[in-house]
């Protein structure tokens, strides 16, 4: 699918913001797709990790509405394999943080059933709350 976009200052600003928040030079990405191929969660994602980075390169704020970075499990497989030394996990975290810092949580704590809550080890709750609540 081909879509025409016109790059404007606000796109550059979004790209800069994500680059700064993640600490990653996203413009280095050459779209090789290694992260997409390595990601264990990619089957659950709506766009691949490499597509997510492409959208950040192009400063497309609509990437914030994708599911991809919420499904990320921070496994760092992409981190160790990127041939350009980019850390896509940090880019995913930056996108999550933009949402979370606007007080838009991905999980609602009170929606966890008490049955599940009693079963889950505390490490799971602590990690999930850190990644998906603000």
């Amino acid at each position, binding site marked *: 699918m081909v879509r025409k976009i016109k790059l404007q200052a606000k796109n550059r600003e979004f790209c800069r913001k994500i680059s700064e928040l993640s600490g990653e030079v996203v413009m280095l990405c050459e779209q090789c797709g290694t992260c997409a191929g390595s990601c264990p969660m990619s089957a659950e994602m709506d766009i691949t990790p490499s597509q997510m980075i492409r959208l950040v390169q192009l400063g497309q704020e609509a990437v914030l509405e994708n599911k991809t970075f919420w499904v990320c499990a921070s496994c760092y497989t992409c981190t160790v394999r990127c041939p350009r030394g980019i850390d896509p996990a940090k880019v995913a975290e930056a996108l999550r943080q933009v949402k979370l810092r606007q007080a838009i949580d991905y999980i609602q*704590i*009170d929606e966890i059933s008490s049955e599940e*809550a*009693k079963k889950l080890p505390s490490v799971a*709750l*602590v990690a999930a*709350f*850190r990644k998906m609540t603000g």
Partner: protein
Amino acid sequence: MNEPEKMDLITIYILSRQYHVPAGSTILTALEYAGFKLKKGVGCREGFCGACASLYRLQGDYKLHGGLGCATVVQPEMQIVQLPYTPAPKAIYHLEELEPVPEVFTHLYPELYRCLSCNTCTKICPQDLQVMDYIQAAVRGDLEQAADLSFDCIQCGLCSARCPAEITQFNVALLARRLVGRYLAKKGKYVEDRIKEVEASKFTAGYQELQDLSPEDLKKRYFERELNNLIF
């Protein structure tokens, strides 16, 4: 005629407005001297009920301090506001249906696991409690330590108001103390013994005697009673 004592007045700020109040006043008496009629944010006036939680800043100090209005003496240039109430979620539970296990927190206060261990709660606690430590004890499932470290908590709410993870520390602690008291703490044998004595009518005659006294005799007996506890 006695000359009125010359009062040493100091400048303080209440809700950012300047007032001059006697040195040595507490926040509560300073508020009243300044003309505020306290209907909320006041209670026992002796550091026990937790109603008079206040926030203040001192001159030349960037830190935000928490104190009880009845127990904090005002200082020159102090800036004060009261926080009589902090909205807090209170989980509904029946103590008899709970077990003294760590899982009570995962399902009754799951936000507990957002704790960042930042110590903001400890910094603001007017009772100098180790709030972060008792919260972390709850996270670890150590109910007894959570109960022990939170024992002097008076539920003033300042910790919860400041907590970046939006935990209600004092309700978590209350649950821990209730569970420990109900299921884990040693039962005092003296309580059981005393109940048995009461049921065996050991005190019936004594109570009857007091009830039969006239009001004057009762008063006399009261003032002449043996005071074997040091109250002061």
